[in-house]
């Protein structure tokens, strides 16, 4: 049996959750889910159509924002009640923080940052990249009863809701916890755009952009494409853009469908964070830049001429 941790934004399920629901549909295994937070109940209603038979919900207002102690307490309770063979969750900031602690609490196994997942004869076949994508390995679970699999977003296809059924809703109550962690404040990020780790298209800039003021060109291109803007380590270290925009080994690992690298030479550090992208476009004035070795399409030339011209072309194409 599969238990899906259905992460959501308050209004809708995250892309990663829909990918997991699709994988569970195809597994042939019975599927349950957990939805937490104030909107849990209204969102839980959508899950029956995805083939989920039972949804554990807890709408306690204390779960509105992420407090690790409360979340691992309620997740451990849900797991001990559902007794799943597999727990599937997104390898998001929340998932990565929460589930190792849950695994410790319930004596389960946890594999995070996985990129391949399928089911064969009721058993999960899981692979993940190692050494920043320079190789990959299959995760071979040993004896643990509950195996927790955290999947990177954008790795699995999203199917359609298939059934005209509703799931059973089971309410869970939060048991009192002697809290050592208190949420002092949540400072919302300024960006309306999807996070780099969830984005389907990324436009990224490097030192070739010559200064923070020129990132506007990338913003314009990104707006046309519905993309999120990223950056190389060099420009983050130079203070042009915040660390939250850094793609690479000490930044974010991304795997969008389309990655457009503008004025990025392609240091190993950077390639480590984006080489899993499906299609890579490189724009650089240096024909020997290492980024071209990873790219699907390359344009050798001046980013200041090419980027605005691309913005115009894409605008025409997508109208």
């Amino acid at each position, binding site marked *: 049996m599969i238990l899906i941790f259905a992460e959501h934004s308050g209004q809708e399920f995250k892309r990663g959750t829909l990918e997991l629901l699709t994988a569970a549909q195809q597994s042939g295994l019975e599927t349950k889910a957990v939805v937490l937070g104030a909107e849990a109940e209204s969102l839980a209603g959508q899950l029956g159509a995805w083939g989920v038979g039972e949804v554990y919900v807890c709408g306690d207002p204390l779960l509105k924002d992420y407090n690790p102690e409360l979340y691992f307490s309620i997740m451990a309770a849900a797991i001990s009640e559902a007794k799943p063979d597999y727990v599937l969750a997104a390898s998001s900031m929340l998932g990565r923080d929460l589930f*190792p602690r849950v695994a410790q609490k319930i004596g389960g196994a946890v594999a995070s940052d996985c990129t391949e997942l399928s089911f064969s004869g009721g058993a999960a076949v899981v692979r993940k990249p190692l050494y920043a994508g320079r190789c990959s390995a299959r995760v071979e679970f040993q004896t*643990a009863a509950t195996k927790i699999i955290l999947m990177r977003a954008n790795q699995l296809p999203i199917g359609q809701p298939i059934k005209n059924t509703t799931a059973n809703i089971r309410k869970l109550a939060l048991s009192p916890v002697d809290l050592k962690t208190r949420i002092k404040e949540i400072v919302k990020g300024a960006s309306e755009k999807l996070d780099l780790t969830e984005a389907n298209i990324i436009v990224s800039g490097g030192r070739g952009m010559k200064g923070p003021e020129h990132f506007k060109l990338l913003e314009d291109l990104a707006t046309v494409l519905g993309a999120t803007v990223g950056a190389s380590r060099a420009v983050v270290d130079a203070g042009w853009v915040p660390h939250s925009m850094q793609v690479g080994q000490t930044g974010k690992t991304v795997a969008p469908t389309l990655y457009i690298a503008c004025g990025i030479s392609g240091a190993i550090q950077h390639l480590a964070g984006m080489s899993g992208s499906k299609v890579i476009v490189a724009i650089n004035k240096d024909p020997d830049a290492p980024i071209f070795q990873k790219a699907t399409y390359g344009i050798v030339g001046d980013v200041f001429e090419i980027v605005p011209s*691309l913005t115009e072309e894409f605008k025409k194409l997508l109208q």
Partner: protein
Amino acid sequence: MRIAVCIKQVPDTETKIKLKPDQSGIEPTGVKWVINPYDEHAIEEGIKIRDSNAGSSVLVFCLGPKGRCSEALRTALAMGADEAVVIDAPEFLDTSLTGRALAAALKKEGAFDLVLTGRHAIDDNAASVGQILAGELGIPHATVISKLTLNGGVATVEREIEGGTKEIFEISLPALLAANKGLNTPRYASLPGIMKAKKKTIKEVSLNDLGVDPAKGAFRYAEFRLPPEKPAVKILAGDVKTQSHELARLLREEAKVL
């Protein structure tokens, strides 16, 4: 204040990864080992906190084959850590056993007010050992922290999540905190620091001493593969207008991503 810092040794980013012929792992010869970059931020933070709180100490722990891991600990000592413990373990030990072994090693050294580590190791990107260790120790944790202030027995930490949103937590000590880049700038080991570190003894413990059986892990990695070869890049010719037009066409018609 007693501060424990847990570090991991990982292959340097520039190291070429080769697989063993039976695909059971990577070929260890020729690998250049370094301290996991995020763990350097944890060491730095530990030293900074010790220096601004009289009577404090920093103990660094590293788990792995003791020969190479002692080098990482020597570097941490040269940066300014007070003592070091190596937990001798095989090349691979899964996250649950690593967490358990570290917890037992820390307990052997007494109680700590603060346990610091990196947000994840860049080799397997599991980001799991810190939380498992905190669970074994029964203390709260916060990961991916880019800001830390201590006030009495309470740590205020800032953790950046998706979309640049920041979660600010107040956590009662003892606690485990996992450092992100941005928390500080790790120092280089000074020459006097390196000389001093050479004279220090690195304490050794075995998994057996800690009651951990390496055969009883929750998972292992198998069937290693190198990534598939990428076809050669298609360089687009012509003037800027032609190039852009052609790229838009290829992305739609050939790659089918627009």
